[in-house]
């Protein structure tokens, strides 16, 4: 799977650094996580995230009886579309031309930056307003625009804060979620004649005033796109603030940078996605504003851009499309898996080091940025499945992470840097699992020895020798004192006896367990 490691494999992990992980991309998952776990403010923010957005997502799915069916339908649309992506892109291109817009093709990030810059320069644009777009983050557009002397302002409130703070977004839909209201007030106050109070509403009003002037004077607006409808040439932008509407209505040029995987064939496919996107992202039934933008203003219209440019971005997507991780291209960037993930909610978005964070980031960042450079990310998951349960297109994220782990293992094996002990241990484990007698003997031995001696705590805090790597940052569940097999046997016999006695109350083995056998006392040990 060497083809996965094209972009960033040369960026080897460096030693101790004192980087501000909020500001720059990096390959330091473990160090950054440690920092994140030590930050009280961040921990507070992350707890809030799971309790509000995560809960609202689950409530919204539960309140909509069709949610599971629509998620399955959306998944099917994505799968079918990707199977004939070339054909749908050609339709999209023809539709945009028919609407009077222009289409550009960008193979990679540098290509995309160049395309956007040449559109802006050739039309004498000096200032740009942007609405929130992860794709422009992915190609690092802002520094390129600034370097070319084009004044660039993010207009989404969260992105505006992040831009003024000189940081990176830490969440797909709530980019400044890691900051406290006090920190935000401090950052915005630097750009205000008088200090601003630590009050969310007052700060939003300040941003409104600052950005209104920008919208009215900007030469061009740059957006991403949630969907691109092939048959009508429509870019769909979903948002809550109205900044994307300003960005696409007032400036004379609109440039939309859209990944090729965002195409959907028909207009009739769109409501399927709209019915699940906001529910997944924020628990809303619909986001506040959904704009269907199809080219420049028509004759007679007085609003909307005079020019419309669609930049279609590959940047590694075709490489993913042809391989076993193809399903990751279904992602509609809602952020639901982040809110649901116990790892994201412990370490936050910046720890992941790439543009995309959370469970889907742990899949996408290695794919876009190189697997070996990001080897900790596929392991930054307990494989609990909460991400898949939250995903509006039901991406099997745990399976994709396992595939990446497998590829990492193969890469290590090819380089012969897997220890012989580790190899032996896995082979022995594999052999044991295939031999019922051997397995029975091993579990019997474990329950009689470690199981009995650990009957009190149920968790091993430290394991000997090479196994110590596991317990250096987390506990290992101790073998049970009584094997399930033995318990089942015993309960089954008792049940059989009581049935013979004519009792109708106890039928088969009951799920009665020893209180000490429940994993309820999981200690939250953090490094």
């Amino acid at each position, binding site marked *: 799977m060497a083809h996965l490691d094209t972009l960033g494999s040369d960026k080897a992990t460096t030693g101790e650094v004192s980087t501000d992980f909020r500001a720059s991309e990096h390959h330091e998952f473990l160090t950054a996580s440690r920092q994140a776990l030590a930050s009280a403010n961040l921990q507070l923010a992350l707890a809030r995230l799971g309790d509000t957005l995560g809960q609202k997502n689950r409530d919204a799915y539960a309140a909509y009886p069709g949610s599971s069916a629509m998620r399955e339908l959306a998944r099917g649309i994505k799968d079918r579309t990707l199977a004939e992506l070339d054909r749908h892109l050609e339709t999209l291109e023809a539709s945009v031309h028919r609407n009077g817009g222009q289409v550009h093709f960008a193979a990679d990030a540098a290509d995309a930056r160049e395309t956007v810059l040449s559109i802006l320069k050739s039309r004498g644009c000096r200032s740009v307003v942007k609405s929130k777009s992860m794709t422009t983050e992915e190609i690092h557009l802002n520094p390129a625009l600034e370097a070319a002397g084009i004044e660039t302002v993010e207009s989404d409130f969260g992105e505006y804060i992040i831009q003024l703070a000189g940081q990176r977004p830490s969440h797909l839909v709530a980019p400044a979620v890691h900051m406290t209201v006090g920190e935000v007030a401090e950052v915005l106050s630097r750009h205000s004649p008088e200090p601003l109070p630590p009050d969310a509403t007052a700060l939003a*009003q300040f941003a409104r005033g600052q950005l209104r002037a920008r919208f009215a004077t900007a030469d061009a607006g740059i957006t991403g796109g949630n969907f691109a409808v092939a048959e009508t040439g429509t870019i769909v932008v979903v948002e809550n603030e109205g900044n994307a509407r300003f960005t696409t209505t007032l400036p004379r040029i609109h440039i939309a940078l859209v990944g090729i995987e965002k195409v959907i064939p028909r207009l009739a496919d769109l409501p399927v996605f709209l019915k699940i996107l906001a529910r997944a992202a924020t628990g809303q039934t*619909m986001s506040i504003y959904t704009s269907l933008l199809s080219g420049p203003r028509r004759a007679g219209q007085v609003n909307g851009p005079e020019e419309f440019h669609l930049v279609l971005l590959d940047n590694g997507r075709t490489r993913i499309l042809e391989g076993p991780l193809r399903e990751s291209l279904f992602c509609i960037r809602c952020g639901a898996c982040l809110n649901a993930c116990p790892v994201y909610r412990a370490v936050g978005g910046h720890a992941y080091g790439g543009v995309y964070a959370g469970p889907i980031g742990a899949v996408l960042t290695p794919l876009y940025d190189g697997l070996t450079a990001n080897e900790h990310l596929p392991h930054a998951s307990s494989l609990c499945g909460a991400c898949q349960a939250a995903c509006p297109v039901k991406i099997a994220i745990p399976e994709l992470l396992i595939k990446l782990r497998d590829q990492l293992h193969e890469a290590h094996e090819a380089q012969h840097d897997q220890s012989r002990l580790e190899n032996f241990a896995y082979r022995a484990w594999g052999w044991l699992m295939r031999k019922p007698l051997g397995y029975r003997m091993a579990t019997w031995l474990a329950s009689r020895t470690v199981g009995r001696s650990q009957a009190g705590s149920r968790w091993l805090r430290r394991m000997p020798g090479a196994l110590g790597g596991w317990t250096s940052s987390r506990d290992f569940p101790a073998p049970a004192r009584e094997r399930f097999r033995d318990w089942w046997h015993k309960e089954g016999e008792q049940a059989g006896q009581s049935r013979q006695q004519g009792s109708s109350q106890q039928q088969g083995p009951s799920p009665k367990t020893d209180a000490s056998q429940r994993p309820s006392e999981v200690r939250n040990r953090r490094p």
Partner: protein
Amino acid sequence: MNREQFMARVRTAAAAGRSYRVHVNESIERAAGYVGGGADPIERFASQATAAGGQVDVVDDADAAVARLLEICQQYSARNCVAWDHLLLESWNVRAALAGRGVEMSSAGTLPGEDAATRRWRLLSADLGITSVTFAVAETGSIAMIDDAGCDTVASLLPPVHVALVSRDQLVPDLFDVFDALEARKSAGWPSSVVFITGPSKTGDVELKLTTGVHGPKHWHVIVSR
């Protein structure tokens, strides 16, 4: 990049990717996600739009709707409004009613002899935007509007208060129905801008605390006439 190379690359990758297609339950139909308006679509619309942070009045007729509009103007001390040149506003005599209360109402479109910058300033300084809708969606409490000269969607964006006037026949049960209706317009030329609005401008970007009116209107009213 060269278009042909780009497309050739996509074609090859899409073909190779077909070995990795996922299993999907193909028997599911759109109907499984159809919600509709229920027994009382107006009631459903009102409750959904209210849940989204809107303020909804359901009234019996056009006169009651205009009376409610005047109250709202008074509530925000609105002195000048921008409004759509729309059949519904004409037939409800909105302009005359506002003039009677000393509230100025100008078109959201371009006035004779007005340049773009002047118009933009006029719209930005309006106290209140009055529009109708192309559709109102009972399922979600959304309104949908197709941008057109005189019926400019910016009237729902620039002023701090937006009031949408809706008559019963504009109400459709479900999002699927709206897209079916839009579908029917495709052959007549697809409009450059269609927007769905479901609530006042909102952000939760600071500590996930919801605050309204960050870019668009802080107050979103819908008046529905039975």
